């Protein structure tokens, strides 16, 4: 909204000057005075006189009246007729659409200036001809915008509801649809006015628009061209005024468009702050031998307009060779952010604020980008959630897999393709020679995810991070992909971090599980122990929420709080039926309940003593 003020004021001032031209006490813009031909600033003529001795300032102001008059008249005519056409076409579809919207598109086949010249040939130059031509030129824009809005408005529930109530079409159009298209039409209107000013001045400049001696900016530039050697300022003024007017209008259009359609408004990301002071202050224990990945105290910070938030805080876990660790939690618990942080793929607004992550003796979180790049797709690889959008649509599947090989090993291209074929066979893609040459859109979702897995396995990674790799797939395909991953782990001994929100998937694939809630790990241990004897009330609630047999699943009241509203103490306390005042007293640490078993709850001992007497 703030962006509207400056261009809005400027446009308003220009409009005001144009409207008030007769009342400003300016000299007659067409009165010639050959004695003062090309005179400099005179009394009563601060900008001097033109080649016929006419007052330049007066002509500029009256010129605005001509230009804007033509522009507004044509934009309004086009707006009214075009909007009506769009409404009719969008509402009745079929023949109405063909006649009102589609037929308009033909106008777009002509370069605008040429269509205008054609009509000028027939009708002769003049403001009337200009208005006619310009309004025809802008019709399709209005018709299209309104048409699109009507189509989307039609599908809205409230329009459907009014229709179902039996309201007649014209009334629905006027009362429910029109207010919705007002925004886009307004934007279109300002675009048309700005563009009409350009075209009018251009045609007048060619001597085929406004007829002299009427003042017009285009005509003034045309006239001043002949005398540009003696009086360059004569050329400068109309150029400056014209450019400034169009600039103000364009800026107003952009601001309007952003105000009407928030999607296009760019939120400018702040530059990365240089605050890497905290990490490294707390020394950590060396990871146990046999551990492939060891994460300690991982904390991710994101700058937002409301201040920094921490969607991931103090997350720690270990994964051993050939082991699968599942990270489970609801949406917004920070699972995916943790994974992207480990891969060094955080978006620019996010950064690792604290923590360490060791992959085979290399600390990942503070590694320079070039070394990180060598690790990515090599010793550590990742499979993403949505295979539909994760493959590049314009490259062949084989190219995309071969690319992963070539990024890490110096082999000939043909060799990389041969290896890609072997990988395809390995991940169970039938007819690999043909599939290598296929584009992503020619494959099914499950097949694409197999390609993604083949890509991730291309350089025999020690660690494979899978971020909900089956969520976007059909149930039967999900099972196939899970089987494939389990089989691959057995064969290659790769350590897997498997991110999921499904406990069923955890039970099927994982050895150990870390339960995350609101950016923290609240409990971790072996799958068998955690499932059989959950220590944290949240884990218990999650397990109870899984439908089992005929018993109805118990839901968890409330929702995961957003990162800027994380509670001070235990983050689950507001939703926990065992909460006490001391739960919210202050931040909680992850406590070791027994070796390999951690929990973040002040009451876990009492609750465990009471046993599983209450399910959740």
């Amino acid at each position, binding site marked *: 909204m703030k962006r509207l003020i400056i261009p809005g004021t400027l446009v308003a001032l220009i409009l005001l000057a144009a409207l008030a031209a007769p009342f400003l006490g300016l000299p007659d813009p067409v009165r010639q005075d050959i004695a003062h031909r090309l005179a400099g600033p005179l009394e009563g003529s601060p900008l001097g006189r033109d080649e016929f001795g006419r007052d330049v300032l007066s002509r500029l102001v009256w010129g605005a009246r001509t230009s804007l008059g033509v522009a507004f008249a044509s934009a309004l005519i086009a707006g009214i007729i075009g909007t009506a056409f769009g409404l009719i076409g969008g509402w009745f579809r079929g023949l109405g659409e063909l006649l009102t919207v589609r037929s308009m598109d033909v106008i777009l086949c002509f370069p605008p200036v040429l269509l205008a010249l054609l009509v000028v040939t027939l009708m002769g130059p003049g403001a009337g001809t200009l208005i006619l031509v310009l309004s025809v030129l802008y019709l399709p824009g209005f018709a299209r915008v309104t048409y699109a809005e009507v189509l989307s408005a039609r599908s809205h529930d409230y329009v459907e509801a009014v229709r179902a109530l039996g309201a007649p079409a014209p009334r629905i159009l006027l009362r429910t649809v029109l207010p919705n298209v007002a925004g886009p039409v307004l934007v279109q209107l300002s675009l048309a006015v700005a563009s009409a000013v350009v075209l009018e001045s251009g045609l007048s400049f060619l001597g085929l628009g406004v007829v002299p001696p009427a003042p017009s900016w285009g005509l003034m530039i045309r006239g001043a061209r002949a005398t540009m050697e003696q009086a*360059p300022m004569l050329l400068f003024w109309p*150029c400056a005024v014209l450019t400034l007017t169009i600039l103000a209008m364009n800026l107003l259009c952009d601001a309007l468009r952003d105000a009407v359609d928030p999607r296009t408004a760019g939120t400018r990301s702040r530059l990365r702050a240089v605050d890497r002071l905290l990490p490294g202050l707390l020394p950590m224990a060396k990871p146990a031998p046999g551990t492939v990945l060891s994460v300690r105290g991982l904390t991710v910070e994101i700058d937002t307009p409301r201040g920094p938030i921490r969607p991931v805080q103090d997350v720690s876990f270990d994964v051993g060779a050939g082991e699968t660790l599942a990270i489970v939690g609801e949406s917004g618990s920070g699972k995916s952010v943790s994974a992207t942080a480990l891969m060094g793929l955080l978006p620019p607004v996010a950064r690792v604020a604290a923590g360490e992550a060791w992959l085979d003796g290399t600390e990942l979180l503070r590694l320079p980008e070039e070394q990180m790049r060598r690790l990515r*797709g090599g010793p550590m690889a990742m499979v993403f959630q949505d295979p539909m959008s994760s493959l*590049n*649509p314009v490259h062949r599947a084989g190219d995309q897999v071969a690319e992963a090989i070539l990024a890490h090993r110096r082999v000939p291209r043909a060799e990389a393709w041969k290896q890609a074929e072997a990988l395809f066979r390995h991940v169970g893609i039938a007819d690999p020679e043909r599939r290598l040459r296929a584009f992503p859109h020619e494959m099914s979702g499950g097949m694409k995810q197999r390609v993604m897995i083949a890509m991730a396995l*291309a350089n025999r990674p020690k660690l494979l991070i899978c971020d909900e790799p089956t969520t976007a797939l059909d149930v039967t395909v999900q099972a196939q992909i899970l089987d494939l991953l389990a089989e691959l782990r057995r064969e290659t001994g790769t350590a897997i971090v498997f991110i999921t929100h499904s406990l069923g998937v955890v039970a099927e694939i994982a050895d150990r599980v870390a339960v995350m809630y609101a950016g923290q790990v609240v409990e971790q241990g072996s799958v068998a122990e955690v499932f059989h004897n959950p220590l944290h009330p949240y884990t218990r609630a999650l397990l109870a929420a899984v439908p089992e047999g005929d018993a109805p699943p118990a839901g968890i009241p409330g929702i995961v709080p957003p990162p800027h509203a994380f509670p001070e103490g235990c983050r689950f306390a507001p939703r926990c039926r065992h909460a006490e005042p001391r739960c919210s007293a202050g931040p909680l640490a992850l406590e070791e309940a027994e070796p390999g078993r951690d929990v973040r709850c002040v009451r876990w001992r009492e609750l465990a003593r009471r046993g599983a007497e209450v399910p959740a």
Partner: protein
Amino acid sequence: MLWVLRRIGISVALAWLVATIVFMTLHMVPGDPAELLLSTGGTMPDPATVAELRERLGLERPLLNQYGAFLMGLARGDLGVSLIDEYPVLDEIALRLPRTLELILAGTLIAVAVALPAGTYAALHRGGLFDRIASGVAALLLAVPVFVVGTLLVLVLAQMLRVMPAGGYVPFAEDPPRHLTLLALPAIAIAKGLSAVLFRMTRASVLDSLSRDYVRTARAKGLTARRVLVRHVVRNALTPVLTVLGLHMGTLLGGTVLVEYVFNWPGLSTPLLRAVEARDYPMVVGIVLTISGLFLLINLIMDLLYAALDPRVRAS
């Protein structure tokens, strides 16, 4: 392949529509077209002259007959003769079209060469100094009409600094360096609007592409930043830019008329403007059809390029 044939078919149909509309314009204006063409200001034209013009334009024949003759003429490449000097319209176009094409090509090349790298760089360093300056310059360039840029270029570089010629034309075969010097300013003037539009589109498109999942995949593979940029970001960002390029060729072709006038470049615009002023209808129709046909052809080429870049288009 089928897709290509269908796309060519659409272009032919559009060309026919364009021709029909041009034909109909003459008959859709209220009143007698011949009278209209001859009237200047408020004076009534001489009835004998009107009758003669009606005869020459074939307005006495039935409408369908005229339409058929018009289309047949187009198919044979016969665009009629000028009302002023009886010079065949096609000969005039054949002489001047190459010069206009050269100007368009030079302008487009300059715009693409400036806008694509600048837009990509601005997107990669979004919010940085270059991005802010370039975005501001683009907004300014979009606001200055093409004839203002041309006129100011002449004023500053030719009149005041005297480093460039004010305009004119010398055939390439006669004096290549002089030809290119004379080409430079009009080509820059034509490129100004297109480069601003392309800069904005490239910047937006690269930003969009950067946030895509497949770019994350490419980075997760461990590709070098350069390779991610070229093969995954820019390659995918190019398709929308191409579409915009095609759509804005209309504005560019219209701008050519103004630029040729400003710089005395003897392309199609000289006879066009002369003919509009003299109400030489066949000449105007011939040139308008030629440039509109060029516009359709450019868009056809853009769409075919688009298909070459994006396999999904070929499939649909």
